[in-house]
């Protein structure tokens, strides 16, 4: 019991009077009669509109000087009539400081039962003292069950929406039951909300009242209606705070997934202890309170909603009085499982391990599952995350086999499988192949059988560093569960050719299996045992494109590994490759490169359609620039240069630009990989610009002996006898730097170029051209000379080259290139100008600025000048020839005329 002091007021009418309702009497204390009237009318629940409205109890609040007070108005019929014969109701209003019932919580029912018997009448009388029974959590919990915990929970949560709440269809519910229901609802809210609560056992919806929670015949439009004992869900997910609160309440009251929660008694007790005054316009405070009260149960709820914070969860395992023990065994495992999944480092893992034995109890399997799941996520989804410590733990508990088997079953998507296979394979190799050995890892073995891609990866990984014994052990171990899958690998290992059935098995296993087999074949087998049937089966147009790539790659490996190949065998492979006519241009390019590497000629290059040429070039470059041994690379280079220098592809109408594109791409990629290695290709590039020498123009062998000599000569890599061989060009950067330094050292142009020629620093026409392109800008930038002077340097260098100061071969090439390549280059540039001027739309007239027109007109003037001068020169020659012929004719005529 708690003793409280209450102030009071009596509100009603005097019998027989025509006056309205007013305060008829009041205690002498903190509140004046006018204040009592203000409070009572403010929280008026409206006119009683049904017989069962009265008697009614209205609970309210007031806060003079911010000190909260609780009020209770008990309204009933008085049995008297007013001046017009209408029944008078009377209201006894009681008011007590909240402070008195904060430490000793009370219920509305308790308050009503304590106050109901009081009959204050003397105006100005003293405050009254009364004993109020304290709140009994069990009783409130019983009422929650009695009136339907669903209804009670929903009603409590609805109070946090800001709307008023009306309980409907309860006209026949007696007053005391209504009060108990209100107590049950309030029992699920922090006690401090009572300092702002207005509740009533009956309100009239026709009156715009301020009662938050009441029973009524109808709910006002914006009020929340709660049908009595409803099972309907009333709180909308849109009402976020209330909805979350409801879920939390439910979780704490009932638990979930068959687990226990806090329970109603404990919850009511805990909420009754939350005495801090609260306001309904800050509902999130209720949510926070519930989270705090819930302790481990709240954390468990958050874990289940995937909204927990690991740091907060760890607080449950505090050193002093860990709260984790408030949870049942299943819940404890659930919490630890969560921490296993979320742990970041070994230190945290150490803590988990310390709690493992205490928490696990007799049932370790849920935690083991968590272990596997955590390891699985790290291994498969984020393969850079370490799982070693988890494996260690499994080892300590003798459960490595289960652990590995669980990991093998983990990947649930193709992406995860692809991401983690390598890591899984490493783990298996470490634990089974290199470690204890496969004996007794039966669950893991079954896991591999379910996950054959891991087996393929394991094979591929073992090729790099494994031994024949390890392979044998692996195959022996897996054979009982994967007899078909292991058979081809055993054949390879035993240097036998796989049977057709085994080849079927390889093909059925897809890319990974075939790859593993080819790798194994390379490392441990006899190359031709698998390559020959692979060629026959998968290289032709009918073969799966992905496997064709693999086979070609495998052949490249084999070719690289087999430097000395006999002529006969070389010819056989050339024939096999030549017969393979895949549709894909990149694969045809791969074959062409392999043919060149074998010493043969490409078969596809002259005939690839223009639309496929880019793909062909990509494929050619990919294989050409792959990792070859030095010897293979040299052969490839020689063969490529020889072929592309020759006339064969030209005779098949392969476009020069296409081939140039190929050579340029090869040169660029080679330069990236082998500095200086692109030089010969760049030379070839410029050679390609020379007009081709028609075959008919070449000296033809006159007989079989000469033909053989020519063939032998070409087979030695000399190309055509008339093909010129170039020395390795110097670097344009070096030449430019030389010129710059020489100028800075005080030499003039003539001296610099004389030095350049004497020291033979400019031998290559390619370099010479590049130097000319860059000279002007380079000099201006590096030496600070003016543009006009830079032009003089440029002109002089060109004159020196033309004057054969750097040698006639250079001059010859230079002239050829300039006369052939430059006009084409100028046309290309003009095309770009036109494109820009027409803004990309060739139906539009070109738009040139005045300056641009001037430039073009200058260009035309120069070209016209050159051409007209060339024409004049040609005309004089023709004129001289015809003049000569006329003179000859006249001379002849004169000689035939008679003398005399």
């Amino acid at each position, binding site marked *: 019991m708690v003793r409280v002091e209450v102030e009071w007021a009596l509100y009603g009418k005097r019998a027989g009077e025509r006056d309205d309702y007013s305060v008829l009497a009041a205690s002498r204390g903190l509140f004046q009669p006018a204040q009592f009237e203000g409070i009572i009318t403010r929280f008026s629940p*409206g006119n009683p509109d049904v017989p069962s409205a009265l008697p009614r109890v209205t609970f309210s609040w007031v806060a003079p000087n911010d000190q909260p007070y609780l009020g209770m108005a008990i309204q009933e019929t008085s049995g008297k009539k007013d001046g017009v014969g209408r029944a008078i109701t009377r209201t006894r209003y009681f008011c007590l400081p909240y402070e008195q019932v904060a430490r000793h919580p009370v219920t509305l029912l308790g308050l009503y039962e304590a106050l109901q018997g009081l009959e204050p009448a003397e105006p100005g009388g003293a405050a009254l003292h009364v004993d109020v029974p304290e709140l009994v959590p069990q009783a409130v919990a019983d009422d929650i069950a009695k009136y339907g915990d669903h209804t009670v929970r929903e009603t409590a949560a609805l109070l946090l929406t800001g709307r008023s709440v009306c309980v409907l269809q309860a006209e026949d519910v007696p007053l005391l039951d209504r009060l108990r229901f209100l107590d049950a609802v309030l029992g699920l809210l922090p006690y401090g909300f009572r300092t702002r609560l207005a509740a009533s056992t009956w309100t009239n919806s026709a009156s715009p009242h301020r009662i938050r929670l009441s029973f009524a015949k109808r709910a*006002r*439009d*914006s009020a929340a209606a709660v049908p009595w004992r409803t099972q309907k869900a009333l709180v909308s997910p849109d009402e976020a705070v209330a909805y979350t609160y409801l879920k939390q309440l439910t979780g704490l009251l009932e638990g979930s997934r068959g687990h226990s929660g806090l329970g109603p008694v404990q919850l009511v007790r805990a909420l009754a202890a939350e005495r801090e005054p609260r306001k309904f316009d800050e509902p999130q405070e209720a949510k926070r309170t519930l989270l705090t009260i819930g302790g481990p149960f709240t954390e468990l709820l958050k874990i289940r909603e995937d909204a927990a914070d690991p740091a907060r969860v760890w607080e449950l395992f505090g050193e002093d009085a860990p709260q984790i023990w408030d949870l049942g065994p299943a819940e404890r495992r659930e919490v630890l499982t969560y921490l296993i999944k979320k742990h970041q480092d070994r230190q945290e893992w150490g803590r988990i391990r310390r709690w493992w034995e205490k928490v696990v109890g007799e049932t370790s399997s849920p935690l083991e599952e968590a272990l596997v799941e955590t390891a699985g996520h790290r291994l498969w989804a984020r393969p850079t995350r370490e799982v070693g410590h988890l494996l260690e733990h499994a080892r300590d508990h003798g459960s490595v086999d289960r652990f590995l088997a669980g990991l093998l079953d983990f990947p649930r998507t193709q992406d995860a499988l692809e991401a983690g296979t390598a890591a899984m394979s490493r783990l298996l190799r470490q634990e089974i192949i290199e470690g204890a050995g496969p004996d007794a890892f039966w669950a893991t073995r079954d896991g591999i059988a379910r996950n054959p891609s891991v087996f393929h990866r394991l094979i591929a990984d073992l090729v790099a560093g494994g031994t024949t014994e390890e392979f044998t052990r692996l195959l022996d171990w897996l054979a009982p569960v994967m007899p078909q899958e292991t058979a081809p690998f055993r054949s390879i290992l035993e240097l036998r050719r796989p049977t057709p059935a085994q080849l079927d098995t390889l093909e059925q296993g897809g890319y990974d299996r075939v790859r593993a087999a080819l790798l194994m074949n390379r490392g441990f087998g006899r190359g031709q045992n698998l390559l020959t049937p692979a060629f026959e089966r998968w290289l032709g147009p009918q073969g799966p494109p992905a496997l064709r790539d693999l086979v070609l790659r495998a052949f490249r490996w084999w070719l690289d590994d087999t430097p000395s190949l006999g002529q006969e065998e070389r010819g056989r492979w050339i024939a096999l490759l030549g017969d393979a006519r895949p549709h894909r241009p990149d694969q045809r390019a791969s074959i062409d490169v392999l043919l060149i590497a074998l010493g043969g000629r490409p078969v596809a290059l002259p005939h690839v359609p223009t639309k496929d040429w880019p793909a062909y070039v990509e494929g050619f470059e990919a294989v050409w620039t792959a990792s070859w041994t030095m010897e293979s690379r040299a052969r490839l280079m020689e063969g490529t240069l020889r072929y592309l220098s020759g006339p064969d592809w030209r005779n098949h109408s392969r476009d020069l630009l296409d081939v140039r594109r190929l050579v340029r791409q090869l040169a660029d990629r080679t330069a990236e990989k082998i500095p200086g290695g692109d030089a010969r290709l760049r030379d070839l590039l410029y050679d390609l610009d020379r007009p081709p020498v028609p075959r008919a123009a070449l000296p033809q062998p006159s007989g079989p002996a000469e033909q053989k000599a020519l063939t032998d000569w070409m087979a030695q890599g000399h190309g055509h006898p008339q093909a010129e061989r170039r020395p390795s060009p110097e670097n344009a950067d070096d030449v430019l730097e030389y010129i710059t330094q020489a100028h800075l050292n005080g030499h003039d142009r003539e001296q610099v170029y004389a030095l350049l020629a004497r020291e033979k620093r400019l031998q290559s026409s390619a370099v010479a051209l590049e130097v000319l392109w860059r000279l002007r800008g380079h000099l201006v930038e590096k030496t600070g000379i003016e543009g006009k002077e830079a032009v003089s340097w440029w002109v002089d260098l060109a004159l020196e080259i033309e004057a054969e100061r750097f040698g006639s071969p250079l001059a010859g090439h230079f002239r050829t290139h300039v006369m052939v390549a430059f006009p084409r280059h100028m046309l290309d540039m003009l095309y770009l100008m036109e494109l820009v001027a027409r803004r990309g739309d060739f139906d539009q007239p070109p738009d040139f600025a005045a300056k641009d027109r001037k430039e073009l007109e200058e260009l035309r003037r120069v070209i016209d000048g050159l051409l007209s001068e060339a024409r004049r020169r040609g005309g004089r020659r023709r004129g001289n020839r015809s003049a000569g012929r006329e003179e000859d004719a006249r001379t002849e005529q004169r000689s035939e005329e008679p003398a005399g």
Partner: protein
Amino acid sequence: MNHDDRTMRRIGLWGAPTSGKTSFLAALNIAVTQSSEEWTIFGVDDPSVDFLVDSTTTLTHERRFPPATEALSELSWILMSETEVEIGTRRRKETKKIPLELHLDVLDAPGRVFGHKPKTDAHQSQLEGLGFDDEDEGMDGAGGGSELDEEKLIDNLADCDGIVYLFDPIREREKGDAFQYFQRTLALLAKRSLEGRRLINGRLPHHFAVCITKFDEPRVYQTAKARGYITFDPDDKHMFPKVHPDNAENLFEDLCQVASAREAALVHGSIKRYFRPERVRYFATSAVGFYLAPRTVRFRASDYQNVVPDGGEGYRIRGDIHPINVLEPLLWLGRQLSSETGR
């Protein structure tokens, strides 16, 4: 000119405690049913429907008056019928029937709200010191509290097109406080109308139906009879006495004269001063009407009291309910407002 008047008109209710506001509303349903004109009444919301049903039951079945109003009630009904309006020019007028809808938006307030005494500063600070903040202001139109009730009431009246003012001559005779319950509301209403620029030549724009209630009360009936204001409607089979509309104001004046404090005359004067004469009309009304004995059809002057003591402290209604001039003020207001639209 559009004569189809379906415009919603708002009509307010005003009267001192015990003036009969709730009873007036309670009798409305019966008055509509008994009217010779074809009217129908509909509740706009459930509480309004409940009020109609419950109050009819209270009056007719339980034969008692509704309980005193303790708190503000928001009620809303729609009256539907047809009305005749005169259209045309001065030379050629004709009447036309147009549909009529009257939206009766009523705040049935406790009488004390109309006579709400102005607070002293001390009083004001006492109420402010109670710590009531705006926390629950947004809670679905929360009301409650005398100040807010008064504010709501004035807002309601100011927005109305027509007002029914109930004058209780019995109360006035006994307490003489009619003006006390009139003047403050009138002043606030005038202020609100001034702020809203609704005054017409310095007068309130409202159409004002003054209803002298409790016409069935002997003191009221006898006064009217003595003054010669009584008349009868030949179409009324019960031949209930009525006060001719032309005499109702005179009756009002006479009743003011016999009031104890004579302040009622101020009410009359205020009405004449603040409302446009052509927009004011007087009615003698009775929510329950005169007694008609079970086997009689016609009114009997020798036995007409329908409200009698119940043997205790209260009163009971003897016979059936025959409201007098309960519907008519509303119809007059409706027609006034419709004609105004038609002009």
